[in-house]
């Protein structure tokens, strides 16, 4: 298992007009559960369908319709909880969160306020080699997503589509353990990576399948340590919640703006009002969502349509036994088994597809050389052309074959790059290509010797010069390589040239 010990990063300090301030950030991440059907109905979760076509009478909240829970969505939440080293609650229950909005036909969201399915866990957020923030997870609960309103199709009306209504969401709530905008973005990135490894959420932020509410407050240096020692929120400042952000860049910009806004108020002798705010990326500022304030009386009560959700420990154990290898463990294994650097291990474990690809290339081969080829040659080329690893024209088996030829001296490093180019553009079996196109490295010293003798015999003037200035031996090496089409073993050529010139 992972035995890396991390040092905590320093909290971000913002210098105010009067003195220094620190940030305290907690996040609520809404992650759409990957499933075929919705949380409480048999309608599809697929995107891109005709409006209101993936809607059942349950989702449309027709009178008399009753919710029936999708067991797989429960399993996904449990799997996520295990992945975040969290306590799984065998007893959980659903509550109604009441509010009126056109995209919520029930007039309430079925959620889990009092008894969430997952309790306390943690996420290790790396901020550099050996430096990481441990962000505590307070809880994860299951709830229904809302529909979508479209405001730009008509000047006087909004259009509403319930296709997303009732799709399962996991709300992942952190403790206020995040201490700066960069940490906040890194936390979202790490959580996204874990969810994608687990297969419980696709992490597509652009389509809102992963979105964040960010709670920001500011305090004086030392206050946060007092909070951590006592867990008494009284040591922290009043927080504002910035709703619904789905870009790492905006999350950082919004936190930075919001912190400076609060600092300006406090230094001016004012008080921060606890409220919900919205980030406007065009203006680069947050503004109050005053309309939300009164609606914030949700009048939660236990949902009378649903019995408590009781799950069995044996089922949880079975899910735990089928857990995939997670990012931290995979990174540690890549470093320990393949001797990768921290940086290379991070690059290769960022996405699961890339990690699988590398694993296959590196298995039974030199890990460092494999990492070098996968990162520099393959990723470099794919990035340049805007392709993902899944679209790679070179398979792991082909790249592995190339590394075998390079490793056993059949081809030189230079020829290997030519071979990679052929594999990338034309495809084929590496060994067959090398055979068919005569790309084998010439290690037969007799053949190389003949070439060296020929070059020396043809260039007596150069030979004289080289005897005066041994650095010119490089010219002979170059000529021999040229004469052999780059296939001569460079080390052997070097040796022979030096010896024959008597240097």
């Amino acid at each position, binding site marked *: 298992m992972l035995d890396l010990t991390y040092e905590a990063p320093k909290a971000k300090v913002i210098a105010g007009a009067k003195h220094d301030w620190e940030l305290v950030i907690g996040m609520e991440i809404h992650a759409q559960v990957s499933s075929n*059907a919705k949380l409480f109905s048999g309608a599809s979760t697929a995107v891109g369908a005709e*409006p209101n076509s993936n809607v059942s009478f349950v989702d449309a909240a027709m009178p008399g319709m009753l919710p029936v829970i999708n067991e797989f969505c429960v399993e996904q939440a449990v799997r996520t909880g295990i992945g975040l080293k969290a306590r799984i609650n065998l007893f959980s229950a659903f509550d109604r969160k009441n509010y*009126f*909005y056109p995209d919520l036909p029930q007039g309430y969201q079925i959620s889990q306020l009092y008894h969430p399915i997952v309790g306390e866990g943690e996420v290790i957020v790396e901020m550099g080699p050996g430096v990481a923030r441990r962000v505590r997870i307070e809880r994860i609960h299951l709830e229904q997503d809302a529909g979508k309103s479209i405001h730009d199709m008509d000047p006087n009306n909004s259009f509403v589509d319930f296709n997303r209504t009732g799709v399962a969401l996991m709300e992942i709530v952190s403790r206020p353990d995040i201490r700066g905008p960069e940490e906040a973005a890194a936390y979202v990135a790490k959580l996204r990576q874990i969810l994608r490894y687990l297969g419980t959420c696709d992490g597509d932020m652009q389509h809102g399948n992963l979105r964040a509410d960010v709670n920001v407050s500011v305090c004086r240096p030392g206050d946060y340590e007092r909070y951590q020692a006592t867990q008494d929120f009284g040591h922290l400042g009043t927080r504002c919640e910035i709703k619904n952000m789905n870009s790492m860049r905006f999350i950082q910009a919004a936190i930075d703006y919001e912190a400076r806004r609060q600092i300006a108020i406090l230094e001016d002798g004012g008080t921060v009002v606890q409220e919900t705010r919205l980030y406007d990326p065009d203006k680069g500022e947050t503004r109050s969502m005053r309309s939300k304030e009164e609606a914030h009386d949700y009048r939660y009560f236990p949902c009378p349509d*649903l019995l408590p959700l009781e799950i069995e420990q044996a089922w949880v154990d079975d899910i735990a036994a089928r857990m995939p290898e997670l990012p931290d463990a995979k990174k540690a294994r890549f470093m320990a088994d393949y001797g990768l650097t921290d940086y290379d291990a991070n690059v290769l474990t960022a996405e699961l597809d890339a990690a699988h690809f590398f694993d296959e290339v590196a298995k039974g081969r030199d890990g460092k050389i494999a990492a070098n080829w996968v990162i520099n040659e393959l990723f470099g080329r794919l990035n340049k052309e805007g392709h993902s690893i899944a679209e790679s024209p070179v398979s792991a088996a082909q790249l592995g074959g190339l590394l075998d030829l390079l490793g056993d001296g059949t081809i030189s490093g230079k020829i290997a790059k030519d071979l990679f180019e052929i594999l990338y553009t034309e495809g084929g079996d590496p060994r067959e290509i090398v055979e068919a196109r005569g790309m084998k490295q010439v290690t037969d010293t007799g053949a190389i010797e003949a070439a060296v003798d020929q070059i020396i015999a043809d260039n007596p003037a150069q030979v004289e010069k080289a005897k005066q200035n041994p650095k010119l031996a490089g010219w002979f090496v170059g000529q021999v390589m040229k004469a052999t089409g780059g296939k001569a073993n460079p080390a052997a050529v070097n040796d022979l040239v030096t010896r024959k010139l008597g240097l």
Partner: protein
Amino acid sequence: MSIDVETARRVAKLARIQVDESDLAALAGELSGILTFMEQLNEVDVTGVEPMTSVTPMRLKRRADVVTDGNIQEAVLKNAPESREGFFVVPKVVE
């Protein structure tokens, strides 16, 4: 617990129920009466009694993750006061 006129007005607004100003006082009185009646339950000592969630011992029914419903756009929209191009049409709501 007693409900004053202001609370009655707020509850009505949250529930989107239109109540005439002149009816609020009477409503507040009725709501207070209901709550006072319910409060009699507080006299029972329930220390150590687990909350009852069902009268019969039942397990929450579950469904497999299979698409079995949907594709009834026309039926879903049938009761809507206004619909266009497959969407529900509502008065403009912009945050």
